[in-house]
């Protein structure tokens, strides 16, 4: 019922910290990761009201450098790389020729011809292999850096204050990045995150991760696990690859048309332009369950559609989620019935995000 094998799972450089803190460790994308420390709800609310720290060292990194770095990434990534300045961060999807989503990624531009792209743990090897295959006709070095970085996310309304007290200079604004020393450890700091709160993400040498973790926790950040990370991101309708994104669906139906600039000619752009022009048959939309009950990924929507993510929202204290819905039933305000393991539950399609400050 609750057993899990811990063999063959990778451990982050902070494994001992998690174990000492009494975290519940679960397998996730081949890694043994903390799903919670004290409780998902408590950790979630700490991030919404104060500051939380997440170990996201399972996420991968791919470094791209060389004269053709920008042209190469533009060939692969859906966003307009010309709009990514040095010291900037940009979100995009990477697609196959059919416009199916291979991954959603943040790319940081470290220097003119030097980029670092963050992959999802479960996709990293496939992403890297795809990038290497596509790199043949470009003058670039594409380097797997997964093993070279620990990654921490410090998120919440107090996160920047807390981190800036430990840092040797100003923190990057949102969607920017820079090199900084934090607790005397050099690292890349990005003004990015996955919670809907302000905050930073840190990428640093794995060996130094425990001392940085300790410094940030000592400064008041609450350790938060993947459980809270999931409820936080779903409240603000951020996508989770494997749930809300997959190779069998495209970015337009996923609501990610805003980060697709088809005129740049990236792989999959023709297919995506076609869907954009014709209009998708279904759209990913958030919903809130009206009464009791919690829909989960895979629950069918009666009459067509499927829940891609579902959980209990600690902020709204309701079942929430996102579902792929036929476009006619996708407008906000539409009532849908979700088959939750045999029980129909009424939900209302809402606008993104489900949670806003001051709700």
């Amino acid at each position, binding site marked *: *019922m*609750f057993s899990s094998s811990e063999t063959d799972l990778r451990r982050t450089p902070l494994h001992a910290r998690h174990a000492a803190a009494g975290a519940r460790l679960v397998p996730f994308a081949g890694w043994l990761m903390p799903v*919670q420390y004290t*409780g*998902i*709800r408590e950790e979630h609310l700490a991030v919404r009201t104060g500051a939380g720290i997440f170990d996201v060292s399972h996420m991968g990194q791919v470094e791209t450098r060389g004269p053709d770095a920008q042209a190469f990434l533009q060939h692969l990534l859906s966003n307009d790389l010309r709009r990514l300045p040095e010291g900037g961060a940009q979100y995009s999807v990477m697609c196959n020729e059919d416009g199916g989503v291979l991954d959603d990624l943040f790319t940081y531009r470290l220097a003119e011809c030097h980029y670092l792209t963050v992959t999802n743990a479960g996709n990293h090897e496939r992403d890297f292999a795809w990038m290497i295959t596509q790199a043949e006709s470009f003058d670039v070095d594409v380097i797997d850096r997964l093993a070279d970085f620990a990654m921490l996310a410090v998120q919440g309304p107090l996160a920047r204050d807390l981190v800036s007290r430990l840092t040797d200079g100003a923190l990057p604004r949102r969607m920017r990045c820079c090199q900084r020393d934090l607790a005397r450890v050099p690292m890349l700091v990005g003004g990015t995150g996955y919670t809907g709160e302000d905050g930073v993400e840190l990428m640093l040498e794995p060996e130094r991760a425990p001392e940085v973790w300790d410094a940030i926790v000592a400064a008041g950040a609450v350790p938060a696990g993947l459980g809270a990370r999931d409820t936080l991101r779903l409240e603000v309708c951020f996508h989770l690859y494997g749930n809300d994104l997959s190779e069998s669906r495209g970015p337009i139906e996923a609501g990610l048309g805003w980060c697709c600039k088809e005129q740049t000619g990236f792989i999959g752009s023709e297919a995506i332009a076609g869907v954009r022009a014709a209009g998708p048959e279904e759209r990913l939309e958030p919903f809130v369950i009206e009464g009791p009950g*919690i829909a989960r990924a895979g629950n069918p929507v009666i009459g067509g559609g499927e829940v891609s993510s579902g959980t*209990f929202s*600690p902020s709204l204290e309701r079942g929430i989620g996102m579902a792929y819905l036929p476009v006619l039933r996708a407008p906000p305000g539409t009532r849908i019935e979700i088959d939750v393991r045999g029980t129909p539950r009424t939900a209302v399609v809402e606008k993104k995000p489900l949670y806003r400050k001051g709700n």
Partner: protein
Amino acid sequence: MAEASYPDDLLYHSEHDWARVDGDTATFGITWYAQDALGEVVFFEAPKLGAQIVKDESYTEVESVKAVSDVIAPLSGEIIEVNTALGDQPETINEDPYGEGWLIKVKLADPSEAESLMDAAAYQATLA
């Protein structure tokens, strides 16, 4: 409740349920281990009064933020009372799994079924 506990006056089912048998009726709930593994319970689907439940089969569900779990009947019988307070405060299952966090009371179909359940020591041995 933070510390694991398994009261001696209860009988235990391998699917992490407990029964407090009193003559031909019994109270059911989930064990400390089950609530801890599940995490904070946020939803309890109250089963219907009068429903017949069957030993070793699911009679309702409890849900935490992350997961849903079937609740297995440790014994067979008819539901004669449901803990309706859990509708508003399902977290009581975490806070007091053997007391206020009880789930249902049952009129037992066959009290001798209880012989197949474990005592606290035997159940705890299965968790080691």
